[in-house]
């Protein structure tokens, strides 16, 4: 299935890369004699999942230290350990040579560590100002009361740094995602931190905002702040990084200087094998008859005049920035959001806005958020795997546990879902296996001209699972299904889709295929030029 690049373990790969390991301080940083922070053999596990094992890391004042790694490599876990959110199982953290005991996030803050987490950590019904000082409210006379003048001043200064142009006294709930991200950054900057950790801060903001952020980072660097930065954007990594550390499967593979390596080498170290045609489809199929067609579809959630066609055997991508309306399109087709205009045709017939009808007519919908929309976490693998197909498996309405378990067992074997029994609660599965359940539950509904909508199929899952899932999707296309794939990972979109619609502000900005289908072309269509 996956071509292994010859080397076996992580160590082998690390040594197979022709880049100097500068994990131990080298002459490259002679001006900063002592690391500000040192991690020694930090390990952390969640149940049987070893998220970090024996990680050593050094962070210097005034450097941008980029952490790279595939999804699930342990980057977020590492910084949550730094932030005092997780207590490491083993190892120690030293700050200025002194052992740091982090009892909780507030200890980390007191030590001068600020973190921008991967998930937005803002409170929707508090104002921008209030969010910025959350947890560190300036005291007014007596403990517990808030000095709102100082609060305003603090917020103003922080917002200025990030170039926020909105109303600092408006509720955060009323801001766009990009602006919320700026607030999040301002929140971390508001307090004079010595170490600023940013977990994928640029994942969901426009190029312009990202450039802005890079300028801010440069500024902080000059003032001696150490910055730990996580990103999947290679170009950004090379622009920003003073040093790069690669994590894989919870282990530190190496630390290197950007000048001493190339993106290809970094990716190889991250993934543990030559990537080659990783995202590439094995075969392309001839597109058959039209399965789905929307005509000027508008929805209450903000879609305007969406025209999209999906044919049998075709993988059609929907690309766009966060908030561009990709998920909303899927929801409108499936009948979850109220349609306010236009029509949806499935096999040339109008499809009413009703999820029950949608499923019975052969549409499968794999939502982007597994935990919220995809799985009943407390219920078993079997219960989840048989849910959408209950009516198919038990046409007479009577359920037999044996039969259900049989179907589930078949799917578990077919998809290689790692579970101990069909009765294990899905809550206890790993993310990739959970994702397999979310997709696998649609398989018992057979029929070869189905429409399969997959929203962010590979978000947050590990390499092996990712490949398996994409292979599964490809198999469905081979059977003649029409696939509508929403993905934020551009390489995946470019490598995997036959045709891509690019959305912006709830409408289609362009359609790309063949040689025109490149990451650059997508980005060009996706970004707002006015904002």
């Amino acid at each position: 299935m996956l071509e292994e690049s010859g080397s076996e373990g992580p160590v082998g790969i690390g040594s197979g890369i022709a880049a100097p390991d500068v994990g131990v301080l080298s002459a490259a940083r002679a001006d900063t004699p002592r690391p500000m922070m040192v991690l020694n053999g930090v390990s952390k596990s969640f149940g049987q999942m070893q998220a970090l094992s024996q990680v050593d890391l050094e962070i210097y004042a005034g450097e941008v230290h980029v952490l790279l790694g595939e999804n699930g490599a342990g980057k977020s876990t590492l910084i949550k350990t730094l932030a005092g959110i997780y207590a490491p199982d083993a190892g120690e953290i030293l700050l200025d040579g002194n052992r740091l005991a982090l009892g909780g996030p507030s200890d980390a803050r007191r030590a001068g560590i600020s973190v921008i987490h991967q998930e937005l950590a803002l409170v929707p019904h508090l104002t921008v100002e209030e969010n910025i000082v959350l947890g560190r409210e300036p005291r007014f006379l007596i403990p517990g009361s808030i000095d709102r003048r100082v609060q305003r001043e603090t917020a103003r200064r922080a917002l200025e740094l990030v170039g926020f142009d909105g109303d600092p006294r408006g509720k955060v709930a009323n801001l766009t995602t990009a602006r919320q991200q700026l607030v999040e950054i301002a929140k971390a900057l508001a307090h004079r931190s010595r170490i600023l950790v940013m977990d994928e801060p640029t994942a969901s903001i426009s190029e312009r905002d990202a450039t802005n952020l890079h300028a801010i980072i440069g500024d902080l660097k000059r003032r001696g702040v150490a910055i730990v930065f996580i990103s999947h954007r290679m170009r950004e990594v090379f622009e920003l990084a003073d040093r790069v550390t690669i994590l894989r499967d919870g282990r530190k593979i190496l630390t290197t200087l950007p000048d001493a390596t190339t993106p290809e080498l970094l990716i190889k170290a991250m993934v543990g094998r030559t990537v080659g045609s990783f995202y590439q489809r094995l075969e392309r199929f001839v597109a058959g008859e039209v399965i789905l067609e929307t005509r000027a579809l508008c929805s209450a959630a903000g879609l305007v005049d969406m025209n999209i066609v999906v044919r049998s055997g075709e993988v059609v991508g929907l690309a766009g920035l966060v908030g561009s309306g990709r998920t909303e399109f899927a929801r409108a087709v499936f009948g979850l959001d109220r349609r306010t205009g236009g029509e949806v045709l499935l096999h040339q017939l109008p499809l009413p806005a009703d999820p029950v009808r949608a499923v019975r007519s052969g549409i499968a919908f794999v939502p982007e958020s597994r935990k919220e929309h995809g799985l009943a976490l407390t219920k078993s693998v079997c219960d989840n795997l048989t849910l959408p197909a209950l009516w198919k498996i038990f046409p007479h309405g009577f359920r037999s546990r044996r039969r259900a378990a049989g179907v589930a067992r078949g799917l578990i074997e077919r998809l290689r879902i790692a579970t101990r029994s069909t009765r294990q609660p899905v809550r206890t599965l790993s993310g990739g296996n959970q994702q397999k359940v979310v997709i696998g539950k649609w398989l018992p509904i057979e029929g070869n001209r189905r429409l399969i909508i997959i929203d962010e199929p590979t978000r947050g899952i590990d390499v092996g699972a990712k490949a398996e899932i994409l292979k599964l999707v490809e198999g469905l296309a081979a059977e003649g299904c029409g696939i509508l794939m929403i993905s934020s990972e551009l390489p995946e979109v470019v490598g995997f889709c036959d045709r891509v619609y690019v959305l912006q502000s709830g409408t289609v900005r362009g359609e790309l295929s063949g040689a025109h289908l490149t990451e650059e072309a997508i980005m060009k269509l996706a970004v707002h030029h006015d904002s």
Partner: protein
Amino acid sequence: MIADIARISRLRGSRSLNFLSSKALGASVVLIILVPLFGVFAGGFLSPHNLVNIALQSSILLLIALPMTLVILTEGLDLSSGALLSLCGVVLALLLVAGYSIPVATLAAMAVGLLFGILNGFCVANLGMPPFVVTLGTLGMAQGLALALADGNAVSGLGPEIEAFSAFRFFGLPVLVLIAIAAYGIFHLVLYRTTFGRYVIAVGGNAEALRLSGVSVRLVHGAVFAISGATAGFAALCMIARTNAGHPTIALGMEFDAIAAVVLGGTSFERGNGWLFGTVLGVLAIGVLRNGLNLIGVDTSLQLVAIGALVIAVLLVERLASERSV
């Protein structure tokens, strides 16, 4: 629990905007419609005497509804507050009869309320039990204790101080109304001017964000229940001032009126979205409705129907106003 029911009834992720949720729509609509209506049809409704009446009748409910607002903001629910008020009233009355002074007896009553509140808070915050279940259980316990302590009887013969206290007026406003106004002021300050209040809003809105900011979410959860209990203890003083006796069942069911008032006032069971002054409007809406129907002389059975219909009608209006997706 409600929060969870509310949670599952909304499909959209937390990202979706709530731009149409106008503040306290329900209570405002009720007041805007009812006040003129009663003004015309219920003789004496707008007389100063009757307005003071409404304020007086609403004062104790407000004392229960204010902390209930905090509890609901944190996606909780306190079903025990009515029974707690009754229990604290019995305790207070027994102490007064035994010759203790009003302040001492009140503090003792508040301590009892606080104790129960801490029990509620501990079970919810530390053991992760659903608030509905916990407070339903403590409701039973408090009510049983009240009945047992009072031996089913009202505790009376509280002495002249309490009468003097309840007769106190300032600019024509009865002492209970003054207390209610002061209580609103305090809760307003706590909710909007202190870190604690801010954390209350944050817990409901995004508990994870608060946790990441280094604040103990458990403590906030526990504290709102503790406040609710202690306030019920204090409300017992007002109740005693009004009834001149400690009744073991006097406030039974009042928690439901309080919940209704909070929700009418625009605080929703989701995401820390609330407005404290809306609770005042909600309490007034209920007070005005009951008062007006009494003035008109509407039969009890129809009053019941009217209140139920009002709750459902307000929900409908709000649903229509916030309709975004099917």
